[in-house]
């Protein structure tokens, strides 16, 4: 844009000597003012664009998902919805479903798995069969056993299913530290 300004008004070409006499000063002022004019809104705008980098993501929080009675004794998984308040830029949403967790009994422990597939983020399903159930991903056919381990050595999934921390509070309440993890990595890295 800024070239248009001067180029339009070629009022007169000065004699050779004049050109060198005033050339440097004019060029200097022009460079400064162009730089200032372009940088002022640009830096301000980029600062705003980078705003999300200053924000803190939702660190994992414990949420109450179920009571022990809800979980089948035989170890069949129960898919519990996670209800939480969330905010999106300027909007604060009242509590609503923001995710889900598979809960299952394993002996006297409770296991919790993130329903998001570690490969590409699809939602995992549970499939029961006479041989025993399994988790599977509908997108790229990754399969996991009931402990969340990959069943196929050539699975698309780079890691086993993501387990979540579980606490039993007040005798029978199942509380889970709800977190999401980076996709596609062999390590389980929590998203902050």
């Amino acid at each position, binding site marked *: 844009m800024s070239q248009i300004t001067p180029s339009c008004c070629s009022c007169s070409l000065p004699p050779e000597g004049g*050109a060198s006499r005033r050339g440097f000063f004019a060029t200097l002022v022009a460079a400064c003012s162009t730089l200032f004019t372009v940088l002022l809104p640009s830096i301000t705008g980029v600062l705003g664009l980078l705003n999300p980098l200053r924000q803190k993501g939702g660190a994992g929080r414990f949420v109450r998902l179920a009571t022990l009675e809800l979980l089948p004794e035989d170890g069949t998984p129960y898919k519990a919805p996670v209800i939480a308040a969330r905010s999106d830029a300027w909007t604060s949403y009242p509590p609503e479903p923001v995710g889900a967790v598979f809960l299952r009994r394993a002996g006297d422990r409770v296991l919790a798995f993130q329903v998001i597939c570690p490969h590409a983020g699809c939602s995992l399903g549970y499939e029961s069969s006479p041989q025993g159930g399994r988790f599977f991903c509908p997108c790229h056919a990754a399969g996991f056993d009931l402990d969340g381990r990959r069943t196929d050595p050539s699975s698309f999934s780079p890691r086993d299913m993501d387990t979540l921390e579980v606490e039993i509070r007040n005798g029978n309440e199942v509380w889970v530290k709800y977190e999401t993890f980076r996709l596609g990595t062999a390590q389980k890295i929590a998203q902050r």
Partner: protein
Amino acid sequence: MKVLLEWFEGRSGFFAWLGRVYASTRGCGGTNCLFLAAIATAFVLQALSGFFLWMQYSPSAQTAWESVYYLQNHVAGGWLLRAIHHYSAHVLLAVLILYILQQIYVRSCRPPRELVFWSAVGLALCALAAILTGDLLCWDQNGYAATKTRVGFLTFIPWVGEYLFRIAIGGVGPGLGHLTLTHFFAWHIGLFAAGFFLLLVIHALLMRRVEAAAMNSLSPEPRYFRAWLPAAACLIISVIVLGAACRHGFQPPEAGVELLSPADVDPANQYAAARPEWFLVGLYELSHLPGLRERPFLSIFIIPGVVLGIILAMPFLARSKAGHLFNLLFTTLALIGVIVLSCYSLAKDRADTEHQRAIAVERQIAGRAGKLIRRLGIPPTGALSLLRNDPWVEGRRLFAMHCASCHSHVSFPMNDSGLAERSTVRNFHDVPSASPSAPNLWNFAGRDWLKGLLDPKRIGGPDYFGNTKFRSGKMADFVKETLADLEADEHAALEKVVRALSAEAGLPEQSALEAQETAFIAEGRQLLAREFGCTDCHKFHDKGALGTAPDLTGYGSREWLTGIIRDPGHRRFYGENNDRMPAYAPSNADAQHTLSAHQIELLVDWLRGEWYEEENSNK
């Protein structure tokens, strides 16, 4: 690297072109160049800040104001970005107006420069249209009210006005909405900003062409010694914009450009103090002159249209000396007219206390919106719903609409005629009645209010029963006969009664005091029923009976106030003695009510001063 550059140069000729452009700039420095440099600078500021704003903005009735609020208060540098865009737009238009005036005054618009002149006028119109469409986008009370009025002008156009109006707002009106925002947003960028850029290029090329032709024939004096001037002009423009942007400091929400509260589609809540931008104030005042007031189509479309027509004809007029004289005369007179009208309008507004109060009230509501958002966040239904559910804002509005035809709610005593002098209104919650005919409800059931009621000098006055049929009723007689000329110990007893009765209301303002004075209040209750004989007419807890006068049990409490607003003719309140107060929700059938249960709740909370306050103001 060098190979790459050569390859690129061989196929594009870019550097050679750049060199030619640079060479052609040497020696420039005329006034035109100065103006063009300033225009280009303001436009670069506009385009860049506009592009970044575009990335932060969400045009819909529930998100436009909210996204701007977020940008202003929560995004780093957001307030500055808004302010740069705002002020550079106004600087751009101002420079364009000066540019056009200069071309008229020095006669440089004359042939063969018609196209140069016209494209400059086109640039000014584009800038103006971009400002007017951009005004709505932040969707605050001012932008909304101003735009609604302006778009409404379209309906003055005969035959097609109504259709144009509907197309412009993307609906049937009268309120503006989602599609108005998307329409205006698209026009703002796609039509006026892009159009401006295109016109600017055309204008520059035309200018270059005529200047080159003029050079061949005239060979003017070389003006190269002023070549740094345009560059300096660029710098000055940028600095002016930055200075204006920072004039309210660096700390949002005050910094940068003011954002009022979110637009309210309810016409009853429309911002009363919206005024046009500086360049339209003259026209605004013109259309309010007697004679033109009744002919809006003439003042808003015909007169500006004729003026524009004359301006467009000026290049031809400037050919002859007489025509040039006409141009000078016309332009000067028009300028003087606009300036005089503008100054008159601004002075009138400054002296208008109602106008100033409307601005002050709106600013307070904007501040309140910020407080509510800091506490509750912005719900998916938008920030407006926070205000709609806030007693502080909505209670006051409901009172003004439904109660202020009879009751005042003013923090100062009313004068003898009963009218509150509007100039004395200073508190946000002062709502004077235009023709008060019922008690002033400021601090209703509070200690001071009750003290006034039991004051023989005041009970018959305009703040209490002065304008009602109870002026010479039993209560007034009782107060005037029994409570006049009290001894000191009787005064002390009355004070206890006042505190006991006021404690029935459980007002939040007095709760701390009342917690300390329980013994005092208990004594007052005994006095009220026995020595003062209130229960001869009134019911008070288990003493007295209903049917003769309002129940004093829980007097002024939420429950009591809700009851009397719902149905003052109920035997618990005034029964058959009710003066003129309407029943706002007498039955349980919601459809027949003047006020919904929720509205009554807001009104009661407001009367009782029950609303959210920040613990300590954050500064």
